[in-house]
């Protein structure tokens, strides 16, 4: 059956956000990033450009990183969405977060949702080399650090 949302109306969808079953009323024109930030108030996902260039709005949908400003929220129905809040906890940070912290890999932190989620995806896919991590991070812009320390942190990850 076709899934449909008519212009000017909303439709109730179910998705799993950081493992939590989430019910949301979305319009056809609701972007996933707007659902995450404005409706669910998960503001760790950032908005830098809304054109798909910067990567600050990165989340993982069914395990694959995507830029949530390029996603209609309707497409996320029934799917698993991981935001940066779901990566780890303050008490028990993810090893990449620890490595970024120890290696001075970030300054303002605006780009971190994309850097960390793409770094994690690459590590889980078995990446170990600098070249592989460049390919993993090259959809994210950082205007503070120049990327070198991030790559060092990922390559040196224990």
């Amino acid at each position, binding site marked *: *059956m*076709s*899934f*449909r*949302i*008519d*212009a*000017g109306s909303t439709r109730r969808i179910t998705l799993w956000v950081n493992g939590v079953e989430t019910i949301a009323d979305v*319009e*056809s*024109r*609701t*972007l996933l990033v*707007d659902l995450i930030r*404005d409706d669910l108030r998960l503001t760790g996902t950032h908005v830098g450009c*809304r*054109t*798909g*260039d910067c*990567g600050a709005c*990165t989340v993982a949908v069914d395990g*694959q*990183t*995507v*830029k949530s*400003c*390029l*996603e*209609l929220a*309707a*497409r996320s129905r029934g799917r698993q969405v991981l935001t940066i809040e779901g990566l780890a906890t303050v008490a028990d940070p993810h090893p990449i977060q620890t490595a970024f912290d120890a290696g001075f890999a970030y300054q303002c932190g605006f780009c971190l949702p*994309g850097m960390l989620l*793409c770094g994690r*995806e*690459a590590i889980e896919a078995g990446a170990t080399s600098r070249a592989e991590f460049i*390919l*993993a*991070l*090259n*959809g*994210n*812009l950082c205007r503070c650090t120049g990327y070198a320390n991030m790559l060092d942190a990922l390559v040196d990850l224990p």
Partner: protein
Amino acid sequence: MIASEFTYIAPSSEAELAAVIMTATPPIRFMSGGTWFVPLLDAGHIDVNTVIDLSEVGLDHISIVGDAITLGAATTYASLLDDRHIRADAPLLSRMAETITGGPQIRHRGTIGGSAVYANPASDVPTALAALGARLEVRSPSGSREIDALAFYVRPFETQLRSDEYLARIRLPRLRSRVAYRKLKFGESSWPVVTVGVVVPPVGPAHVGLGGVGQCPIVMEIDTAESDIRGAAADWLSRAEFDPWSDHFADAAYRLQVAPAMIDRTVRDALRGPA
């Protein structure tokens, strides 16, 4: 939230899709990965009443039968990269997919068909398909037709697709060829200025696809025994009739100036590669 309102329909089969197209309120637009469509929609640049999503229709399969490779138009760059058949039998597409700008997030969502129909002179896919001699299967509720990739492009951002037609499948010959792909761009996250895809078959001249120089993809043949490939490419371009392309990255004269060197390097890459 996107400012303009529209109806969104995601059919789950091609039969449903045909019914949806017939009853949808025009203007209709098809979306696939959404990586160029959604930002243009968000910026108010697309006049649309009904957005029809092709991502759940089942057009994401890669199949190889005999000497023909068929790609569903909604095949993502990531799927092209992961597919060992594509690596073996259409390696130009693997090389191209490796160079896509925008990172894994774009490779996971962007599709070969979506880029093919965008017809952006700076995009990778149109020229790669033209170099490979691909044929495009376009469908509407009233039937289907096949169009040669080179003839598919009418002018920048415009193809032969009619308003009720969508690109369904891409067919390629299965060729044991040497290939290479290069593009000139000024930054990792930037659009390319010139793209070159080269296919060298076991016999005969190299097929060279050139993007970003004309308003539509250009395909030329270069004799691989030629010692001055750069000169031969410059000579070919000086005789060819095409409408030049320019944008804010580079004007037409610059593109024409760098194209022969890009072609020379890419043909040499291909000739050095495994057969």
